[in-house]
């Protein structure tokens, strides 16, 4: 169950992944089921927070 999502960025400010619920570091990989869950969460109208 996703409660919070934060954008994760590298030193250049490029998006590198998401942090779900403050604990799960999720890569930008379409085959990763947590990444898929974030995309569904965004499609429901939610927006990840910036770090």
């Amino acid at each position, binding site marked *: 169950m996703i409660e919070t999502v934060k954008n994760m960025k*590298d*030193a250049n400010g490029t998006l590198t992944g998401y942090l779900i619920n403050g604990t799960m570091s999720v890569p930008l990989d379409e085959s990763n089921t947590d990444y898929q869950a974030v995309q569904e969460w965004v499609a429901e109208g939610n927006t990840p927070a910036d770090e």
Partner: protein
Amino acid sequence: MASTINAKTTGTGGIEYTGDASGNVAIQSDGTTVLNATASGVEVTGTLQNNNVQVATQNVLGVRNLIINGDMRIAQRGTSQTGLVSGNNFLIDRWLFNLDTTGTWTYEQDTTDVPTGQGFVSSLKLSCTTANASITGTKWMNLQHRFEAQFLQHLKWGTASAESLTLTFWVKSNKTGTYTLSIYKSEGTAYGISKEYTIDTADTWEKKTISIDAHTIDVIANDNGDGMRIYWVLDSGPDRKSSTLQTSWGVYDSTAFISPSQATLADSTSNYLNITGVQLEVGDTATPFEHRPYDMELQRCQRYYHQGMYAFMSSSATTLIYNLQFPVTMRTTPTETHRYPETGGVTNDVYNIATAATPTFVPDGSFADINGIKFAYDFDAGLTADDGYQTYFTFDAEL
């Protein structure tokens, strides 16, 4: 009954024949049958050799079980989860317990209750701790096994040469009655097929064999995605079983996925279900369970999940340098979590080996790929440069 051809070793030796009208023939050595030929085939009762090398009779068909961890031995995440009320829950590797407003459940690896004489040492057990006898709408509860698509290409699904499948498993429950076994082809257009089976006797291990028709309609993509799922349905609200059960392959119909006669496993805190010895194989013949070596099965599980304590170095207050190779190539870039210490640890903590400090460190998302992890940044980290750290990682690439 059979005609016999017997090579004698007594007296002057020679060949002795007997005949009957069975159509069968037995080849004997001094009266001991070593081979039977019947209308259905040949059975070797003696040792089978090829150029003086004995041919294996165990696993003779190779790695034929498409299920990973079908005997429930591998449980990297632990041996018990309690208080489950919703979501996808993995405990025993590759086995997903999904529930939604269907009471409260315990999911555990049971190392005492297994079918007698089958060589199994563990089973998967689900126990109800808070009942729900009035599940509503589309709410349901199931046990799932998901298959990576590229490992199913030899099924030739979506072609005229598509293969059928045979599923075998051992199951035990106090709750007798009709249960649903459903197959779901996931990628692209979803397709489904469902079969009924019965648990006939309470509190007794029963072996079930279910034939699954070849799927000739749509191909399975040759990739690392979710190619197929098997659902052992445990209970359901009315909206998933309102139509006649879909017993032939067709476009997935959520109202016909579960038998209208489906047992209601969530209706009492007395209810439980154990399952083990799950085997899915190509063709229409069920063969004995393929007991694979523990280390081989563990490595197959680690493609989807693994965990462990790892050490690494800091190069600055914000950067950690790793050199960690995963035990096997993972299905996809994994989701990472970490905590310290392993038991009762604090999420996101790392442990400074020199100072015993435990700063929080949340790596950015690009630090891993399917083979391992290298380095990571966290702008908020309070690390000490050039110190050694350790933490307890999990890497999850489940389907």
